[in-house]
């Protein structure tokens, strides 16, 4: 532990670097933790003191984000991505292997304080897993030999900068490109278009394009821009939602890594159209590895006159972009929670209305769009709305990036015009013997073979891009259980149906998964799911029961083959509940047990 005065100096320097702005709180806490490995009460109080805010505000942020620690933590923090796709690739075995080799319990810190090992939600490396994070930096394609080397590096206290670069290699597997990924784009072309034709013309092109929110919600992008443009207010903001947290999605990672200029250009066009001078990229914490490269890209754009003051020499066109890093909170993908987080707060979704286009960042009119949406907008500004709308379907114009993972030969990114059938996608990615698809992530829909002829578009199967394939060797319920646990971990805890409902649902799924469920439990899941769906405050809680509700309809047999024939089973393991008393009394007589036969015999 650092000396008290040194700690305060460290924190003072960090807070100074962020101009003592409370909106930078999350960024400040990340940096403080980088220096101190965890956020002690003393550190939290010091941050509060330096920022001139109440310590409870700092603590509420520190206790909300899963990458921030308020208990002592290892200097090396290794978190295995625990999405179902990582599990399919054998991450559990690797996790246990590493924990054994390092001599540290899972979800804890080694006694010497050097290393912690645990799990985290999907890190967006589904096409190159099993994946993990070390101090927030992505590790891909883990194997036992690679873990052996990591054990050596950790025990030798080798700084991360000296670890082999190939451990951190993130590959963009683009297997199918269309108008977004396939065509060359000259940096600055969209900015020249907006300067030449004026914002009104660009808005018109956006309207004509029919572009809809590519994060998955599908709200018309032009409507957002127009609403924000018309909203009263001197100061407006552009926010790029790169908090790609939906398990199984990684297309925004590829766009940010390989097409950052295109995304930044789309944001800048938006800034010009709505009259904003400041933009933010809210980048999920898991993509920390690309922050330096993104900052360099921003800098080169400034130097090229494509960003900053007087863009392309026009004194009336100023716009800059700042990058905010998340810290492990799926709920921040919800746009109002994202804005809260951007303001330095914990990420609880706001009451809507009012919507961000009128009351967004710092209560000012704000456009929040997905990464892919901005990239598309940049292309539309250059090529025109009709060009974009010539692809796709009646209600879903243009193309969609799909993130393919799971049981297929070629996982990666596939760009299709909207309207492609599920079957076509499965063929292209080399999915042999597919049983079902989790479309649009856990919050989306699980579909079985009989729906493979349906089309991917807003009128049929809407998606933000996640496409996880389960072949016939898989147990669908393994996936459902993984998703049920995911939602418990990611619920923000604000509203009752989501906070409590996700835990109740997890317990029911666990009960059935472990072979203790009955038909009554399935009925219970449906009723509970309905309350969560209609009662929750935001999309997270409303969609959290989807995997269960869908699979009950689509894959009833995966539940039924595990059910007891009895009408009812206890909610807890009664024999295990006697273990403490047996140990305390040393009893081993027959009455000290509640074994299966006794319980079964009495059940009707």
């Amino acid at each position, binding site marked *: 532990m650092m000396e008290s005065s040194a700690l305060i100096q460290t924190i003072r320097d960090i807070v100074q670097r962020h101009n003592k702005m409370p909106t930078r709180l999350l960024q400040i806490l990340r940096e403080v933790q980088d220096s101190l490995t965890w956020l002690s009460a003393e550190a939290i109080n010091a941050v509060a003191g330096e920022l001139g805010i109440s310590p409870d505000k700092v603590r509420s942020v520190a206790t909300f984000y899963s990458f921030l620690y308020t208990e002592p933590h290892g200097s090396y923090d290794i978190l295995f991505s625990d999405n179902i796709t990582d599990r399919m690739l054998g991450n559990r075995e690797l996790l246990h292997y590493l924990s054994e080799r390092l001599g540290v319990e899972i979800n804890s810190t080694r006694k010497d304080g050097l290393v912690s090992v645990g799990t985290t939600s999907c890190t967006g490396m589904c096409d190159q897993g099993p994946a993990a994070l070390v101090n927030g930096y992505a590790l891909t394609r883990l194997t036992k030999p690679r873990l052996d080397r990591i054990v050596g590096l950790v025990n030798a206290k080798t700084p991360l900068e000296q670890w082999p670069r190939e451990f951190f290699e993130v590959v963009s597997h683009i297997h199918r490109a269309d108008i977004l990924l396939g065509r060359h784009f000259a940096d600055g072309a969209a900015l020249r278009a907006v300067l030449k034709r004026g914002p009104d013309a660009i808005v018109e092109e956006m309207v004509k394009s029919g572009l809809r929110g590519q994060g998955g919600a599908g709200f018309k992008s032009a409507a957002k821009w127009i609403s924000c443009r018309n909203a009263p207010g001197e100061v407006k903001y552009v926010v790029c939602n790169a908090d790609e947290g939906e398990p199984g999605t990684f297309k925004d990672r590829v766009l940010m890594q390989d097409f950052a200029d295109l995304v930044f250009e789309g944001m800048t066009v938006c800034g010009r159209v709505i009259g904003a001078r400041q933009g933010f990229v809210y980048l999920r914490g898991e993509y920390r590895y690309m922050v330096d490269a993104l900052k360099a890209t921003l800098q080169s754009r400034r130097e090229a006159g494509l960003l900053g003051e007087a863009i392309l020499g026009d004194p009336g066109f100023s716009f800059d972009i700042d990058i905010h890093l998340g810290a492990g909170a799926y709920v921040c993908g919800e746009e109002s929670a994202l804005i809260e987080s951007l303001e330095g707060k914990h990420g609880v979704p706001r009451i809507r209305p009012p919507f961000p286009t009128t009351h967004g960042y710092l209560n000012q009119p704000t456009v929040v769009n997905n990464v892919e949406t901005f990239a598309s907008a940049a292309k539309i500004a250059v090529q025109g709305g009709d060009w974009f709308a010539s692809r796709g379907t009646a209600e879903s114009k243009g193309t969609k990036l799909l993130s393919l993972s799971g049981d297929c030969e070629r996982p990666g990114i596939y760009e299709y015009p909207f309207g492609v059938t599920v079957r076509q996608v499965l063929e292209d990615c080399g999915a042999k013997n597919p049983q079902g698809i989790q479309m649009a992530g856990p919050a989306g829909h699980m579909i079985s073979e009989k729906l493979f002829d349906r089309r991917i578009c807003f009128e049929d199967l809407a998606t933000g891009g996640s496409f996880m394939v389960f072949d016939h060797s898989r147990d669908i319920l393994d996936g459902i259980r993984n998703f049920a646990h995911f939602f418990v971990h990611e619920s923000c805890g604000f509203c009752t149906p989501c906070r409590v409902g996700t835990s109740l649902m997890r317990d029911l799924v666990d009960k059935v998964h472990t072979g203790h469920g009955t038909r009554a439990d399935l009925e219970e899941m449906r009723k509970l799911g309905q309350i969560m769906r209609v009662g929750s405050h935001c999309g997270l809680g409303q969609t959290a029961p989807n995997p269960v509700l869908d699979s009950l309809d689509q894959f009833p047999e995966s539940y039924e083959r595990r059910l007891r024939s009895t009408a009812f089973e206890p909610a*807890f393991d009664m024999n295990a*509940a*006697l273990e403490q008393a047996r140990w305390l*009394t040393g009893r081993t007589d027959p*009455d*000290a047990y509640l074994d299966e036969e*006794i319980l079964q015999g009495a*059940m*009707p």
Partner: protein
Amino acid sequence: MIESKLKVATCSLCGCFGCHMSLLDLDERLFDLAEKIEFDRSPLTDIKELGECDIGIIEGGIANVENVHTLLEFRARCKVLIAMGACAISGGVPAMRNQYELKDCLEESYTRGTGLVDAQIPNDPEIPLLLDQVHPIHEVVKIDYFLPGCPPSADAIWTFVSQLLAGQPITLPYTQIHYD
């Protein structure tokens, strides 16, 4: 028409018998009830063996092995099972021990008192072994009806039983729904 009387069994698991006291508070209405039902196993009859019954009324939650066995037997032998009172419904006051480890509860009771000689936690096989937590009965078996209260008032019991015996849906008036 001669109707055979319905058989009713009752028991108190981890409770205080307060609900049974409330049952006795039916007073003269017990005579009306006796026209329609016949008690099987119950603390009121002292019948120890449970026969096949139409209705089982359970007071108290599940705290030990004996509670589990009794509850399972009631579920197996009774067509309709009723959770009566706060303990059966939510664990009640006994479930306040769930705030502590069982070890701490037993040590506090048996080994930390003053003047104890050779203090130890009782381990006689005659004593039903405790579960680590107290549970409401709906977490162990399917329950058909819930009658809240600590205890439910005699009036609430009367309304409930009358409606149940008449085959009507249970609708308690506002003043008869209480958790305390």
